[in-house]
């Protein structure tokens, strides 16, 4: 049985349709990425999953039950995108306060999480309003994970984390998945999702563009390569296998590549190159991939 399932979920705020027919399911042990630009409807979906926001239509089940039931939330951990902690409480008081909502269940993971995220002693004794954004975010993550929930809903969880903490965070997520915990992880940063997720849903303007395994997404993805040649841009670059589009401006060429990059790299290696930039793909590139697919299927 899936840990959570959404069927044809819609949410409207007056005339604004925030979600339009969103459907997907997440299984135990799965790390599920929920990708989309700001305002796409990711946070609304997560809030519906927690019973905070009422859907306009469709069906939502967590552990086979309605998300408005408190017993369902006892099995769930949540980190909001805009985390707000009580500023006058110390870190320790905050962890105890939120753990106190589950009186029968201790917080078995708290020590391990504190160690993994490198939360230092002052974070527990100082009031939250005097802590850095990153430390507050770490506390939020501990609040979400300390009781080892069967389902973790994380909304843009790595905001404010430095690269070392991001790495530790990825380790924690993969550990949770090994313990058969399901994780839904929303982000607008593709590389972040790519590093831990097995499957991703891509949301744009409230509509699901795709739900795919990360491997097939990588294969399909159109990526941008920028090259500055020492002399002029060689002819016939766009005819190289894998190149779907090419733009040339003086000695600069921008190539959109799908699938295997080797034929393009070999072709370019025959020339004198001044600069070669092959950045991590961004959401925009993914959308480009799917628009292209839509256009091709028409």
């Amino acid at each position, binding site marked *: 049985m899936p840990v959570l399932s959404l069927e044809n979920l819609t949410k409207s705020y007056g005339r604004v349709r925030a979600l339009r027919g969103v459907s997907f399911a997440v299984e135990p042990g799965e790390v599920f990425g929920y990708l989309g630009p700001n305002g796409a409807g990711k946070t609304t979906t997560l*809030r519906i999953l*927690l*019973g*905070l*926001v*009422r859907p306009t239509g469709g069906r939502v089940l967590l552990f086979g039950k309605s998300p408005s*039931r*408190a*017993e369902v*939330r*006892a099995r*769930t951990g*949540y980190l*909001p995108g*805009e*985390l*707000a*902690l*009580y500023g*006058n409480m110390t870190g320790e008081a905050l962890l105890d*306060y*939120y753990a*106190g*909502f*589950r*009186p029968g269940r201790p917080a078995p993971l708290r020590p391990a999480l504190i160690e993994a995220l490198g939360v230092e002693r002052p974070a527990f004794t100082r009031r939250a309003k005097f802590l850095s954004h990153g430390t507050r975010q770490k506390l*939020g993550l501990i*609040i979400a994970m300390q009781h080892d929930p069967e389902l973790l809903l994380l909304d843009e969880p790595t905001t404010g984390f430095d690269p070392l903490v991001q790495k530790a965070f990825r380790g924690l997520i993969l550990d949770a998945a090994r313990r058969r915990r399901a994780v839904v992880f929303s982000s607008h940063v593709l590389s972040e999702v790519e590093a831990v997720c097995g499957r991703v849903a891509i949301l744009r303007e409230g509509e699901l563009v795709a739900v795919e395994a990360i491997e097939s997404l990588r294969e399909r993805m159109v990526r941008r390569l920028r090259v500055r040649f020492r002399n002029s841009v060689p002819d016939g670059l766009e005819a190289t296998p894998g190149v779907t589009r090419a733009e040339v401006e003086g000695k600069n060429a921008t190539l959109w590549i799908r699938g295997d990059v080797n034929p393009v790299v070999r072709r370019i290696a025959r020339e004198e190159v001044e600069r070669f930039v092959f950045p991590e793909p961004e959401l925009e590139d993914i959308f480009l991939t799917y628009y292209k697919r839509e256009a091709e299927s028409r």
Partner: protein
Amino acid sequence: MTNLLKRLFFRHALFLAAVTAVLAGFEFLICAVVSTIDVPGLLAELLNNVPPAVREFVRQSFGGFSAADLLAFGWNHPIALAIGAGAAVVMAARAVSGEVENGALELVLSQPISRRRYFAGQVVFAVSALSLLSAAGAAATLAGQRVYGLRALDGRTLVLLALNYCLLQLAWYGLTLLFSVLGREAGRVAFAGFLVALLSYLVLVIAQLWRNAAFLLPWSVNNYYSPREILAAHALPVRSVAVLAGFAAAGTAAAFWRFLKRDIP
């Protein structure tokens, strides 16, 4: 719910302690004034020089100028009313819109606590706090009477006064709680709640001062708060209890109904 009540206690403790101290201090001070100054003489002299409408208003407010009347007026004084309304309005505004505004409600309600329990926790806390506030005022009047050798109000009358005062504040709490579940900013909600309380008091004053506006009296919630009637009848008028409790219950019930349906945040 214990967890939530503990948190509410720490959040409001300082504010409520200050409000309770001010109310108790004020009621104690009234005892000191009544026992040390010839208030009836001063008032009688003052009333000779004011227009008849004002004279009528003072007569209705005080009833008479006995020590008991003056102490009862201490419970109907704008300062005492403002303190109680302030406590009720602030707690109600913070309960939902305050938590929405500071962003904390989202994380709290994502925990295994139902909206019913969250709401019940807020109401239980406010009822307890307002009861204690009223009791502290009554205790201060009792202490003031002992210290200054007054034997104006007996224990039963004081309990009835405190109960009537508490019911009035619960009415403001219920109404402001309704504003709170409809709003997102505690400041605006508190302002609206306090404004209604102020308007209700002004309507009462105008209706008592101006005969042509007397028809407005039943529309003022303060009209059902009647320390003077308690003194006269040695009982809490049923009409007062019914209207104030009904007002509080209707506001709270409407707020509860809306809270179950609203999106968070």
